[in-house]
């Protein structure tokens, strides 16, 4: 029984590797046609990735069913490594608007909090102040830094949403 299980496992792993390679080639080819990927990769980068995928597909046709699991996995890894930079960039562009949106919300909340903190500081005698001057100044500075960072990125990067 154990021997049969082992054979079964081996078969499954082989099938898994074959499927993974096939679907990576297929999906990446489809993705490469999308606006998102076209924008995120230079023409030469996309061409070289495409030709690597074509090569991979040819290899798969010829050796796919006879290749052992290790070979299949190696093929996939080579293709994934070659596509990594582009995939990363797509991911960055895709998630940037949301990250900046989160930062914007965080800024709003912090500013409200700062206003209340300053208000409390002004309205009570010194020994009843919750925050020290340094704490208020530090928060102000952090907000300012973040704001400058945000303003420089904001308008430009939010417009990317239109593209995607």
């Amino acid at each position, binding site marked *: 029984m154990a021997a049969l299980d082992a054979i079964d496992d081996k078969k499954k792993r082989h099938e898994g590797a074959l499927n993974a390679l096939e679907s990576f080639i297929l999906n990446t080819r489809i993705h490469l046609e999308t606006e998102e990927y076209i924008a995120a990769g230079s023409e030469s980068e996309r061409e070289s990735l495409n030709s690597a995928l074509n090569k991979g597909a040819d290899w798969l046709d010829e050796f796919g069913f006879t290749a052992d699991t290790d070979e299949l996995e190696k093929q996939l890894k080579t293709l994934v490594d070659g596509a990594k930079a582009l995939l990363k960039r797509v991911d960055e562009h895709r998630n940037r608007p949301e990250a900046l949106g989160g*930062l914007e919300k965080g800024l709003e909340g912090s500013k409200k909090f700062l206003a209340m903190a300053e208000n409390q500081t002004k309205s009570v005698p010194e020994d009843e102040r919750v925050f020290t001057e340094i704490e208020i100044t530090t928060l102000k500075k952090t907000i300012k830094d973040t704001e400058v960072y945000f303003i420089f990125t904001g308008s430009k990067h939010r417009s990317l949403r239109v593209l995607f």
Partner: protein
Amino acid sequence: MKKVKEQAAIPLSENPKLTIKSIVEKMATLDREVKYLINKAKNWRPPKKAKEDKKGESSLFFIPG
């Protein structure tokens, strides 16, 4: 700030200088700062005076978010 300005100018097909990681880090710095102060406000009690203050003082701040 230089990085940020540069990012606005570089095409999408080049690796971003303004990374998600850097945005998240900025957010975390701000968040840490505010949380620290909120926590301080929560645990803060007015100094005892000669005459008794009102007991059970309510929270001084509306906590955002």
